């Protein structure tokens, strides 16, 4: 990644804390808008960050969401300590979700998060280890 970053911010995300959920992405969106990136780029980054943040809240124990803006690109990195994903190919399918009914009642668990994160970003990478955690990296060029 380009070391000449223009902006870098990191947020601790707590698993299962639905009150705080989305606060990090809200701040990320505000900052990206503030530095004058165009609205489509801001929106794609905000959606990617928010879905990644929600996945940590819903599926993991805790994690860190880091956004780095370099000339020409935004990177969003979501790293968590959690159960990991057994079958990534399956998890990437639209509609696949292991979320509980409780989570669904809160408006999540459509199984649309990961596919949408991939759609919103120009480069999408996911690494996971069962019983350890998951790392999702998304890059958006601007």
């Amino acid at each position, binding site marked *: 990644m380009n070391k000449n970053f223009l902006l870098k911010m990191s947020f601790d995300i707590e698993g299962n804390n639905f009150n705080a959920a*989305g606060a990090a992405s809200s701040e990320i969106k505000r900052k990206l808008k503030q530095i004058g990136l165009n*609205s489509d780029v801001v929106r794609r980054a*905000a*959606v990617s960050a928010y879905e990644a943040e*929600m996945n940590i809240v819903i599926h993991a124990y805790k994690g860190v969401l880091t956004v780095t803006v370099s000339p020409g690109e935004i990177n969003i990195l979501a790293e968590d300590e959690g159960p990991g994903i057994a079958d990534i190919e399956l998890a990437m399918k639209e509609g696949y979700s292991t979320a509980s009914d409780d989570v669904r009642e809160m408006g*999540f668990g*459509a*199984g*649309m998060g990961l596919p949408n994160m991939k759609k919103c970003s120009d480069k999408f990478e996911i690494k996971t280890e069962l019983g350890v955690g998951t790392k999702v990296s998304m890059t958006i060029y601007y």
Partner: protein
Amino acid sequence: MKLSEIKDLLQAEILCGKNLSVDIKFACGSDLMSDVLASCKEKAALLTGLTNAQVIRTAEMIDISAIIFVRGKRPSKEVVEMALEKGIPVLLTKLPMYEAAGILYTNGLKGTSEVDDD
């Protein structure tokens, strides 16, 4: 369609937002926020039966123009305050989702899939 027209058609109550002359280009409806995030476009109105803070977060992320809570489900004061802070108008209608959507649609408010990407 102006937000004021939506308010009248749905006999809705305004929970926050002063400017009812904002133009709503299209609408989408869902109780699942990831569906909304994946299919809704900016400047759309969002119809939902979900009333928690994640609705406001979702609306904020994709620049939703207005939120319409359906089937009379009233959000908490905190949720309305959050919308106010983000500058998103919020309406509440007693009508269930299907009927609210049907009324808006037959009055010419299109769905988000019917609009071309810029």
